[in-house]
């Protein structure tokens, strides 16, 4: 998980750059990096659980199969308590507050990343940037508390398969 953690550290560094007059480039990269930190944290863990180590290159191909939009919808279905029958069957108790925090952060950071990268009309503030970095950091902590649990494995599988499970 070195890449994910390094990205999180880098997002905080970028958010504090430029003294009292932060450059939009730094803030926008900070937000985008915070999202990708969480994205890579989850995808890396998913690959480790869902993919065999061999042959070489297979894990990377599986990693490329994750779709940002489908991952978002999987997170939303969990948070809005409207999971598919398959997901309900795999996690009959529902999901813990820590896992919900991770899912919520994923959805909100993805939206923030999109605005940071494409919405050039709006100025991004340092307040908002630091809030997103904090949200990513909180999600990392929450993930650390649940990643060994069965619900985490179901969640990771849902990030990849939820769209198919809902058919």
């Amino acid at each position, binding site marked *: 998980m070195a890449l994910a953690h390094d990205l999180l550290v880098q997002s905080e560094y970028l958010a504090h750059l430029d003294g009292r007059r932060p450059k939009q480039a730094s803030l926008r990269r900070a937000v985008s990096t915070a999202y990708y930190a969480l994205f890579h944290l989850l995808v890396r863990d998913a690959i480790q659980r869902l993919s065999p180590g061999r042959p070489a290159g297979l894990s990377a191909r599986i990693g490329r199969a994750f779709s940002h939009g489908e991952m978002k919808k999987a997170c939303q279905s969990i948070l809005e308590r409207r999971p598919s029958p398959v997901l309900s069957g795999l996690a009959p108790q529902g999901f813990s507050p820590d896992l919900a925090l991770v899912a919520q952060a994923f959805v909100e950071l993805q939206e923030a990343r999109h605005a940071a990268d494409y919405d050039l009309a709006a100025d991004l503030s340092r*307040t908002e940037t630091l*809030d997103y970095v904090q949200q990513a950091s909180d999600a990392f902590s929450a993930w650390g508390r649940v990643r060994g649990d069965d619900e985490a494995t179901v969640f990771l599988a849902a990030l990849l398969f939820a769209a198919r499970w809902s058919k």
Partner: protein
Amino acid sequence: MGAIAVRVDEEALVREAIGGVEPPEGVRLRQVNVDYVDSTGDLAVQVIFAVKKSIPLTKKRVVQLSRFKRAVAERISSLDLQKWPFVNFAETR
């Protein structure tokens, strides 16, 4: 007419829900947009809070703002509008 009435009702509901969350110092509601369309094309609710720039952004302050944002989002989610709540901060003097 009906769509406008629903929108007004939704906005009133969101404003009422938000009113139940005590904001941190220097934070006030600026805008509620119940017709927000997110980056994947889904209808959502966007709430923007103005945050005083003069208050130092200490780690404690950032954590406080983050908790406030989460509390506001939870209140809006509990309304079951079938719209994701996005809570944003805009700096103000």
